[in-house]
């Protein structure tokens, strides 16, 4: 792998940047792999990267229906934080947060991780009580957080209307300074390049049409382009389509797929240097490095596989944003898009072994998968390498819906679902 550096940039400028090495190969798959990962999104690519780099399993293929990073990885609002309430979730997201902090160096790829802080606003007394509880829980887990009052919020975000004259006045907020944003495409590309450099085969534009299961053990997958490919272990990381793949394997998952939308405005001058989220009025907004406002909406109320989302949901979110930031009322929106998220009844992911031997699923991240990308990939890679679940992943077993050990994380999930 060609190392990226300032010197390299200078050197390549002498040949008009025409001789850069390709970021990853486009190989023909082998007949058999140690591990096949179905799904080439952020979590799948991160899994492949850590499998090869940290656990020495390099005979790995990632099979992707479309192109790398063309799914939910590039269809989100890029927010990264770890202020979750329950210990299990807090540990998992904090594990990811620690990996984020060194990710650009680790990958030799600038993922533009920016720790500009995240505010979660409170608009009612109950919101404020929940915020205090969550911040205290975070601090007990060694995660940074503070409770701010309306005046402190106003100082941090001078353009937000924190007066008492709004319909839902801002009473305060939780503040996680280490949280922030990362460039979502770069995350996918960085992990893809890193995995490829360690020998992982990235197989694009190839759809897994069936899973090959013999005597309750998975032995490979069927694809539309290359026929059967054998594997000792298979990990499915196909957010949005997890139910479809689980049905191929002959079991059900407690998931519902919904479109989740986001939109960006035309670029404007720097006005917002942090991330503002509000569960109560339901909107979240940040400003990207190139100046556009990145606004996130909620999920549609009904199941859907259309990557669009409904108009009432956008209207609802934009109302909330304009109420918080009246100054944004004349900003025009450039683009809107939707991704399919699979939501769990307890708003926590499923990282789990399954009723089929050697088949593992990593899914159900709902609306909060992007922030977990490196951590999710890391614990899933550890589980695939050893054939048993990583300690941090164990509470997220799919069997928790049978034994009742749920992790009810709707409050910190940030989006009502």
């Amino acid at each position, binding site marked *: 792998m060609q190392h990226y550096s300032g010197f390299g940039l200078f050197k390549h400028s002498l040949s008009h940047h025409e001789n850069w090495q390709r970021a990853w190969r486009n190989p023909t798959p082998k007949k058999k792999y140690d591990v096949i990962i179905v799904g080439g999104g952020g979590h799948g690519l991160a899994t492949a990267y850590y499998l090869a780099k940290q656990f020495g399993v390099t005979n790995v293929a990632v099979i992707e229906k479309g192109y790398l990073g063309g799914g939910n990885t590039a269809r989100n609002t890029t927010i990264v934080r770890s202020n979750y309430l329950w210990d299990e979730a807090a540990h998992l997201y904090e594990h990811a947060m620690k990996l984020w902090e060194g990710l650009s160096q680790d990958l030799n790829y600038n993922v533009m991780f920016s720790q500009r802080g995240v505010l979660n606003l409170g608009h009612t007394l109950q919101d404020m009580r929940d915020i205090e509880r969550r911040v205290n829980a975070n601090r007990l887990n060694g995660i940074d957080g503070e409770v701010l009052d309306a005046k402190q919020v106003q100082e941090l975000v001078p353009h937000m209307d924190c007066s008492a004259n709004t319909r839902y006045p801002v009473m305060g907020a939780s503040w996680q300074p280490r949280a922030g944003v990362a460039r979502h495409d770069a995350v996918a590309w960085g992990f893809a390049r890193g995995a490829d450099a360690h020998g992982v085969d990235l197989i694009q534009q190839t759809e897994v049409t069936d899973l090959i299961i013999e005597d309750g053990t998975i032995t490979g997958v069927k694809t539309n382009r290359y026929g059967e490919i054998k594997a000792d272990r298979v990990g499915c990381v196909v957010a949005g389509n997890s139910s479809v793949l689980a049905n191929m394997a002959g079991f059900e998952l*407690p998931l519902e797929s919904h479109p989740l939308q986001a939109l960006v405005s035309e670029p404007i001058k720097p006005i917002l240097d942090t991330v503002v989220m509000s569960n109560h009025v339901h909107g979240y907004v940040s400003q990207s490095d190139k100046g556009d406002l990145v606004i996130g909406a909620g999920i549609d109320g009904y199941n859907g*596989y259309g990557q669009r989302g409904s108009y009432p949901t956008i209207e609802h979110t934009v109302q909330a944003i304009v109420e918080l930031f009246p100054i944004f009322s004349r900003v025009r929106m450039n683009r809107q898009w939707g991704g399919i998220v699979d939501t769990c009844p307890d708003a926590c992911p499923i990282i789990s072994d399954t009723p089929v031997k050697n088949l593992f699923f990593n899914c159900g991240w709902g609306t909060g998968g992007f922030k977990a990308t490196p951590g999710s990939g890391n614990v899933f890679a550890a589980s695939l390498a050893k054939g048993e679940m990583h300690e941090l992943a164990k509470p997220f077993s799919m069997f928790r*819906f049978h034994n009742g050990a749920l992790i009810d994380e709707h409050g910190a999930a940030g989006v009502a679902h």
Partner: protein
Amino acid sequence: MFHIYCPHCGEYREEEEFHAAGQAHIARPLDPEACSDKEWGEYMFFRKNPRGIHHELWVHAAGCRKFFNMTRDTQTYEIKEVYKIGEQPTVVAQSAAK
């Protein structure tokens, strides 16, 4: 934006008057005390999530506030039919019709 026919009001109204309440036709176990943890968990949490024909429960929340069922395609978003609680759908997925 859906235009949904409410079988109780007998009129088409906009999506915003309605609220989707998840999968339809979920039968509560007749003898909950006799359920295993697995059976009870599946009744509580496991829902159909098809890519295609789906039977859903809706409520006309800002209208007559009555519940009814809908058959809808989750991929094309086409509403195939609406029918009252207690009635059976006429449009079913081929895989389910076996």
